[in-house]
């Protein structure tokens, strides 16, 4: 796996929960897919990936389509199972290893430390938009009324009309669903955020709003790793790039 790019910009970013040095450290990460239905065909994707991300940094994963950017991001979240290597997350003032971790360890890291903004919202039947957004914070035991206020605030920041808040997002447009998804991922103040094309299906106005919200998190000391195909978005958010090569 090839060179880490130079630092483009470094923000001072004195975050509320400042931690010296990286909060996410990856070493020797290797991942291949084995397709059993096709004679155990092995498709190697990542080989010996190493990276580290500190608070206030936004690392952009770059490389051609098919290079393994999404595979890397999903492996960091434990959604894909790494073959080898180490993914360590600063969690509860200690390092937690995610490769080969127990499911409950990964879930605990996901609940409190590491958020993920995926490209698509996985709709839950019958659940109202405001409750979809509130759920990750409620799960942490937050006050229901305050959580609801916060969910409504995020929805209004993201230009989701109030008349839609009580409806399940199943019938919303792609851009609306993506903004609901972003609101859901930002309702908890995760110290680490993984972003998979957070502005892919948004118009210019909404894209700028999402970039502003994510930029605020970075400046507040969140460590970000993202895939941004839109070079304008990448230049605004990333202060470092990581080249993923097939």
């Amino acid at each position: 796996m090839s060179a880490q790019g130079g630092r483009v910009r470094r923000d001072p970013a004195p975050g509320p929960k400042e931690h010296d040095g990286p909060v996410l450290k990856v070493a020797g990460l290797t991942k291949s897919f084995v397709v059993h239905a096709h004679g155990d065909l092995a498709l190697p994707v990542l080989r010996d990936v190493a990276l580290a991300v500190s608070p206030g940094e936004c690392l952009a994963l770059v490389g051609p389509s098919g290079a393994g950017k999404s595979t890397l991001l999903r492996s960091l979240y434990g959604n894909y199972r790494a073959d080898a290597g180490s993914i360590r997350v600063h969690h509860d003032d200690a390092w937690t290893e995610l490769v080969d971790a127990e499911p409950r360890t990964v879930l605990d890291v996901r609940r409190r430390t590491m958020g993920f903004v995926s490209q698509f919202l996985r709709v839950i039947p019958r659940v109202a938009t405001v409750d979809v957004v509130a759920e990750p914070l409620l799960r942490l035991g937050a006050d229901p009324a305050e959580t609801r206020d916060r969910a409504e605030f995020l929805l209004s920041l993201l230009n989701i009309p109030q008349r839609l808040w009580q409806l399940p997002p199943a019938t919303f447009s792609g851009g609306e669903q993506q903004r609901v998804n972003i609101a859901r991922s930002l309702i908890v103040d995760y110290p680490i955020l993984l972003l998979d094309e957070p502005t892919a299906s948004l118009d210019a106005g909404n894209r700028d709003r999402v970039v502003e919200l994510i930029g605020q998190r970075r400046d507040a000391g969140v460590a970000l790793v993202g895939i941004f195909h839109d070079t304008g978005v990448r230049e605004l958010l990333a202060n470092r790039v990581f080249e993923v090569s097939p």
Partner: protein
Amino acid sequence: MKPLLSAKRLTKRFGARVACQDVDFDLWPGEVLGIVGESGSGKTTLLNCLAGRLTPELGSVTYDSAAYGTIDVHDLSEARRRLLSRTEWGFVNQDAREGLRMGVSAGANIGERLMAVGARHYGDIRRTASDWLSRVEIERDRLDDRPTTYSGGMRQRLQIARNLVSEPRLVFMDEPTGGLDVSVQARILDLLRSLVGSLHLSAVLVTHDLGVARLLTHRLMVMQGGAVVENGLTDQVLDDPQHAYTQMLVASILPV
């Protein structure tokens, strides 16, 4: 923290046929474990062994009971196992008729569980039963009706209310949405999802429906021919299946 339920090398045969073999796992408090696989893969047999309804040939199941400490489920007397299954456990059957008493009213079906955990005041029992009826989206004025007058979906919701009213620590569910039409299924899934979250339940859920598993469970065990061939975090098993059988199951889902 201790596991709530532990299975060690659990093996059950019916004659020469192996129904489940060498099953090992720990269920931790607050976890929802899904057991998936095709019909005949041994899921329901395993669930029945875990809940003490079937006796395995080999292996053990231990449960960390609030009342008795750590106990071996298959060493319990029948009376104590029944008490446990009315107080600390719930069991939601695929066929609600097996989990309900069809000859008595809905209110009595719910109230019976409350009395098992010590409720005695008739007015309180009736009020709680009525609250739970509305919690599972059944009109309160159906409290005195027998489940024979209910639709399939209502019976399943009544069975869920009967099992959860006593706030059990551990619930076993066998295809809780099997055989119901999809709109009814969505309603029950939504209900189970919110109840599991708000009551901090631990559960073992058997299903052949990977969509149900994705929505309700934290982790999955995939069974084939009585053996566990893969286990892990639910989204990881479904999005990056490792075993040939799991890959085949995931690839067989029909897109909508």
